[in-house]
Structures are given as structure tokens and as C-alpha cells.
């Protein structure tokens, strides 16, 4: 006998218990993005530093966290660290794991963004005697940020879905609460249909936000495409011109 009850699926979608799980998923994602960006920015700065200890540490960090599964990282933080006497609450464990992991990816995105800003921009800032802070804040960061948005968007999309791994260490986010409902009612397809719908909604909302961001930060660039011929040498000339 095969059956699928759309009504049940809709009911699960409006299930208060599941909705609270959605809020936890959103909270985990937002906190991990913010924490990951701050830490990732620091890791990226270290990676670009001329100090071999700093850049070496940063290289190791990125290699380690990008080279191991998030699932293992979460389990080690949750179940492994207590063996060494280090204990966090469940939600803290999930956040620490997600932030540490996300920072490794974001660091590379931040670094590539800054490296793509031409040396000529920094030279122009020096020539105008702008302070290092103004140069960073007003000249390099906005240009680097515009280049970072597309890969940043991808990374955040992945992160949103990766929060489901926190279910394994018993964080009651969307995935975990779906499991709980499923085990209670055995309506497997109906429950996961509701969960899937929520994930799709969340990723779609994020897509829309990302498009807005790209449009906002790309407005000078949109202007540029109208005059490709005039701006082509600007984009590429960079440092190459030395007599």
C-alpha cells in the first residue's frame, strides 16, 4: 500500500514544534556567518601577513578545517573534548564547530577578494596620503567586498544546509525536530516534505538577499559595462606599467 498525505505534510509545515526548529536553524546560520566572518577576516589577514609564523598558522588552520568533515569536528567538540575536561553546552558546541569550520572557507574568500584589488588602488591611496585605516575602509574593503559577494553567497548557502549536521549532536534545529516528529508519527515523507520546504524557502530568501547585495555593491560596475572600451585598460593595467 502506498500513500502520501498532503494534508499531513501541510500540517507538519505549520507545526509549532517544527517552526521553532526553523528558528534555531536560522539562528545557528546567522551566528555562524557573523562569527565566521570575523574569525575568517582575522585568518585572512594573518594569511596575507609577511610574518611567517602568522601566515604559517593561518595556512595550517585553513588546511585543517577544510580538510576534515564538519561532522567529525562537531562530534569531537561535543563528545571528544569533555574527555580533556573541556565542556560546552550543546548549542555552544554547534556554534564553535560551525564558526571554526566556516571561518576557514571565508578566510580564503576574503583573501582572494583583497588580492583581486589592483595594486594601483593602494598606490593611489598612498599618493593621496590616505591613512592605512581610510585606505582599508574606503578603498580596498568596498572593492574586495563586491568581489566576495558571489562566493560568500555560495558559502552561506552551504552553511545554512550544514547546520543540519548539528542534529547529530542533539541540537534541536529543523533536521533534529523533523527526526523527532518522524519517530513519533512515522509519516516519513510528510515530515521531510515540510522540512524540505523550509530549507528551500530559507535558501531562496538568501538567494534574493544575495542578489540585492550584488546589485547594490555592483552599481558602479554596472555603469562600467556601458562603457567597456573606456574602462578596460583601467581594470587590468595595475602594476604592469613600469618604465
Amino acid at each position, binding site marked *: 500500500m502506498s500513500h502520501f498525505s498532503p494534508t499531513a505534510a501541510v500540517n507538519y509545515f505549520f507545526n509549532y514544534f517544527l517552526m521553532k526548529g526553523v528558528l534555531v536553524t536560522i539562528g545557528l546560520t546567522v551566528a555562524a556567518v557573523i562569527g565566521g566572518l570575523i574569525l575568517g577576516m582575522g585568518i585572512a589577514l594573518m594569511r596575507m601577513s609577511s610574518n611567517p609564523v602568522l601566515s604559517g598558522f593561518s595556512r595550517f588552520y585553513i588546511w585543517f578545517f577544510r580538510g576534515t568533515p564538519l561532522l567529525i569536528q562537531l562530534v569531537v567538540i561535543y563528545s571528544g573534548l569533555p574527555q580533556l575536561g573541556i565542556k560546552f553546552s550543546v548549542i555552544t558546541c554547534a556554534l564553535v564547530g560551525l564558526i571554526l569550520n566556516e571561518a576557514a572557507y571565508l578566510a580564503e574568500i576574503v583573501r582572494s577578494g583583497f588580492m583581486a584589488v*589592483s595594486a*594601483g*588602488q593602494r*598606490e*593611489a591611496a*598612498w*599618493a*593621496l*596620503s*590616505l*591613512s592605512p585605516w*581610510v585606505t582599508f575602509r*574606503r*578603498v580596498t574593503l*568596498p*572593492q574586495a567586498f*563586491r568581489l566576495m559577494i558571489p562566493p560568500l553567497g555560495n558559502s552561506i548557502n552551504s552553511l545554512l544546509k550544514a547546520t543540519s549536521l548539528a542534529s547529530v549532536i542533539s541540537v534541536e534545529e529543523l533536521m533534529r525536530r523533523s527526526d523527532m516528529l518522524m519517530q513519533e508519527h512515522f509519516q516519513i515523507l510528510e515530515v521531510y516534505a515540510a522540512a524540505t520546504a523550509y530549507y528551500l524557502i530559507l535558501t531562496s530568501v538568501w538567494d534574493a538577499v544575495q542578489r540585492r547585495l550584488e546589485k547594490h*555593491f555592483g*552599481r*558602479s*560596475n554596472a*555603469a*562600467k*559595462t*556601458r*562603457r567597456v572600451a*573606456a*574602462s578596460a*585598460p*583601467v581594470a587590468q*593595467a*595595475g602594476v604592469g*606599467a*613600469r*618604465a
Partner: protein
Amino acid sequence: MSEMSMNTASGADGAAAQPQLREVPAVRMEAVYKHYGDFTALNEVDLKVARGEKIVVCGPSGSGKSTLIRCINHIEKHDEGLIYVNGIELDHQRKNIDAVRRDTGMVFQSFNLFPHMTVLENCILAPMTVSGMSEAEAKDLAMHFLTKVRIPDQAEKFPGQLSGGQQQRVAIARALCMRPKIMLFDEPTSALDPEMVKEVLETMKKLAEEGMTMLCVTHEMGFAREVADRIVFMNEGKVVEQAAPEEFFKNPKSERARTFLDQIIH
């Protein structure tokens, strides 16, 4: 050693027959070296530029012309020798570098306008954050100089919407907004389409007529002939010869300058 005694000591410097007594030169370089690995970009360069003087630096590619003027505002760090700009020694100390950069404006081959800011924002950034001007003051100043380079109507546009010639004129206006005493031009017309070269050179000529001290790396020999007080010819990191334009173009002293001129003047 004081700047004054240095000045009086060297009368036969360049085209200006009269040494300018009691005046600190705009730029003074003594035995300046710059290396990139094994490559010697500047090889014992001596140069003195008087206030108000217009210098055109020319020479084959790789001769060190750009490096020379990039050392003057410390965008490139010289390895040995002394550089004084308006009497301030460029000794790699932060406060001296800042002081020199406030006295010098630079225009680049690739314009280097900030693409995410409008023309006006490009012009007011440094006056507001470095000179501490109010936004209204800075805007007035920017409009003054944008009018001077004849593009006040483009103030609200982004650099990418302008032609190369317009962008370079914005770059000149942006530099002028810091009221520099010396302007450095690093091949300002080399990245431009041919029909846009003239408008930029005209702007530079106007600046020269107003008495600005200028050092200009360029291959525009017509401009050099018309505007320069002195031509500095470089080859392999050395200043090979310096002379007034008519002298330099009529009978260059060095063999290298002769072959160079043969190549570029058709």
C-alpha cells in the same frame, strides 16, 4: 649640510643657468639606488629640481623613469642615497613620508581612480579624511578643480562611465584637491586612445603655465618641447644626460639618446 649651501654650490645644474639662491629645491636626489633583486632600477641617480621647474623624464622602457618618480613620493622605497622633497628628507620615517606625500600629487598611467566612488567622491575623500575639511568645503574645492579640468558636469558619474581622457583629467583634479606643491606624472597619456591624449596634455600645460613644479615621465616629445624646462634622459637606471629641450632634440650628447630619438621621432 644646509640646503642653501647645496644650492649655491651647483650652478651648472641643468638648463636653468642661474642657480636659485636661498631656495630649497623642490626635489633633490643624491646617489640614489633602487634594486629589484638582481636588477638595478636606479643606479646612482643625482637630480635636482627647482621650484616651478618642469621636467620631462624620458628614455627607453626599463630605464628607470617610472621608478625615479615613484621614489619621490615613496611609493617605491629607494635602497641607498638621499632624497629630499621640499627640504624634507625621505628617510623611510612615517611622518616624513606622510609630509612628502602631502606635498606631492601623482597621476598614474592607469588613472587608478576609485571605481566604486563617483568622480566627486574620488575628489573629496583625501581632503576630508587627511586635511580634515568639512564635506561642503571639500565639495567646493573639488568642483573648483573639476571645473579647471573642464568636467564639472561629470561630478556625479562613476569613473567607468567616463572616457579614458576624462578619467585622467579627474585623476589630475583629485590630486590637485590636496593642493600639492609638486605634481608627478607617470606616463599619463600612455593608456589613452590617441584622440584623448590632447585633452590631457592641454590640462597639464595649463597647470605648467600656472607655475606648478612638475616631473613628467612621458613619450610625448611635442609636450616636452613645448612645456619642459629640462629633459632628463635615462638609460639602464642612470641619468645619461639632461638638457633644455631645444638642446636635447637638436644635438643629444650621448649615442644612446640619439638612437632613442631616432626611434621615437618619425
